[in-house]
């Protein structure tokens, strides 16, 4: 998670005039903007700052803008990308969308089109960040559980009854009930269903990695 955030939107285009125009347009609605004329300088900055949206020209001086999303992923930059192109044909827009881009705009575009895309991008970014914030707090809560509490939680979520868990772990049924109550309290689960959902989220993220 970016600690310092100097800009919401990064604009990458080798044409300085267009960079400034887009910057001016976005600033007029109160966004913070940084412009870059090369893919490399953009990657270096984005690695630190993780912008909410990247506006990327397909044709950059000496490099292909379509390659940048892959490079961004390899550097763990998850900012949504909006491509802009001077001579966009169907083939190019298809390959742009295949890189995982959020949108593809042909120059010259209408201001509202660009602003809509940027807004969507920021929204998507926020949602993604909220989800990852939630997961982080879930993990913190999960780490406060004792080994016994975790075992009981896992078995309970898997559908075993208290009696079965007790015999499996060699505990009395009352002790299992206490551990179960403790686990639900610590995980801030209001109902047992909440606990199941939390376990699934934790399981998925440990399984697939986040």
């Amino acid at each position: 998670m970016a600690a310092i955030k100097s800009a919401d939107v990064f604009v990458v285009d080798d044409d300085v005039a267009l960079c400034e125009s887009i910057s001016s347009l976005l600033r007029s609605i109160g966004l913070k903007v940084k412009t870059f004329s090369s893919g490399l300088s953009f990657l270096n900055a984005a690695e630190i700052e993780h912008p909410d949206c990247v506006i990327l020209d397909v044709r950059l001086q000496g490099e292909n803008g379509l390659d940048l999303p892959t490079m961004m992923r390899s550097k763990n930059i998850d900012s949504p990308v909006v491509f802009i192109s001077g001579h966009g044909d169907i083939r190019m827009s298809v390959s742009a969308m295949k890189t995982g881009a959020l949108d593809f705009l042909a120059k010259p575009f209408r201001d509202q089109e660009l602003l809509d895309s940027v807004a969507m991008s920021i929204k998507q970014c926020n949602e993604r960040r909220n989800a990852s914030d939630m997961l982080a707090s879930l993990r913190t809560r999960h780490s406060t559980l004792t080994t016994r509490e975790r075992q009981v939680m896992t078995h309970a979520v898997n559908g075993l009854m208290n009696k079965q868990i007790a015999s499996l772990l060699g505990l009395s049924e009352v002790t299992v009930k206490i551990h179960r109550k403790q686990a639900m309290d610590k995980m801030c689960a209001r109902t047992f269903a909440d606990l199941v959902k939390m376990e699934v989220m934790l399981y998925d993220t440990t399984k697939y990695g986040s």
Partner: protein
Amino acid sequence: MTTATDSGLAYFLRASAKRGVMIFFMLVFFLIDSIGPFDFVVAVFYIGVVAISGEAGDRRWILRVASGCGFLTVLSCLLFHEPGSRYSLEAPLATLIGICIVAHLVLEKKETKNQLRFQADLLGRSQALLESTQNLSSTGSISLLFPSMDMHWSVEAKRIFGFDGDNSPLISDLLRSIHPNDHDLVLSTIQGLYRQQSPAEAEFRIILSDRRTKIIRLVGRPTGLTDDLAEITMVLIDVTSARESEDRFQQCQTELANIQRVMTFNEIIASIAHEVNQPLAAVVTSAQSGLRWLNRPTPDIAEIDLALLRVVEQTNRASAFMKNLREHSLESARVAEPVCISEILKSAELFLKREARASQIDISFHINNDTPLVSADRHQIQHVIMNLVVNSMESLSINYGGIREVIVVGSRSVSGDLSVSVRDSGAGIRGEDLDKLFTPFFTTKINRVGVGLAICRSIIEAHGGRIWAGSERHAGAIFNFSLPQLGKVSI
């Protein structure tokens, strides 16, 4: 094989019978000579036998017969004639001399005959070689005698033209099988060979009796000329398959060039679009952001100022690019020099004939002698002509069933200017398309950009000329352009 053996045997039997008869006569004459009173008459008999000995054998046989006759003469003289007799020595001596002379003559005749047979063999062999060579190379030859118009055809020549039978075809047969449009060409080539007495070449089509068409290359040379007799030899080469593969090659190349042209054009368009789009995008975006800054509760004058400055700057950038583009366009590359249109038309004719043949189109060029010189860029005018003719040929697509003809005419207009027209026998141009023909990116063809005629117009108009098109229903399309004659307008 059997027949060869049989005929060999028959020959042997015949020769042996002849020899037997000769020996029999020699003995009969010996008896007559020995016992009869006919001294000199017998000499004639012996000489007669020697004279016909050549019929029944070779050199050795003739010598044997001669010496046999001589021996018998001497023998009968020694045995039966008394030494005192008046004719006893004169007659045998005369007989011997006679035999010698006749034997000598017969031998010589035999020798000549052998030589003749050898020559005939040689001739036969070289004739066979010639025939197989002609057959393998699809090359026939014809000789033509003037003024009798007698012709001699080689076997292969007859085969190429599809004539069978032993009779030599006549000049009228030859002319009848020639494609009607090439008729005059062949006739004038043959006449030229006869009149100018210098070698000539031509290529023409013939139509066989089964409607097949062949392309024939003719190379002719006058071979003999006396006061009132002339002979020309013509070699006829069947070049149909060679021309067909050449045509296919040419077609592939044309297609490739076409694809390349379209691709290059697309590249150019893409790069121009990029160069224009970039400032245009900046202008639009700046203007819109300026509006947004203006419409804020407190307008930000500094930002509005910057945005407007960018608008001005980027507009200038775009117009500078367009100016640069114009400077690199046709206009700046044009060279003006006196140009004779007939040269351009002739070189175009050479190039286009092949393409026309591949598409089975008859193309003809008519260049009037009084066409004026014009001041022009040779290559650009060539481009215009090629473009118009290729367009016309394309209008006669391979499926077009009517007359397939393109006529190019170069002439002098009433005002003294140069006028060139290209007319085709295709389906013509639809009325609503006629106005749009010369506008860029208008095309009725697939995979075309539609700038050919637009470029033609810009070239012709830059030369101070005019270009226009017309079309009559069912009479094809006609494209014309005119260029001012040299000295009338300077470009």
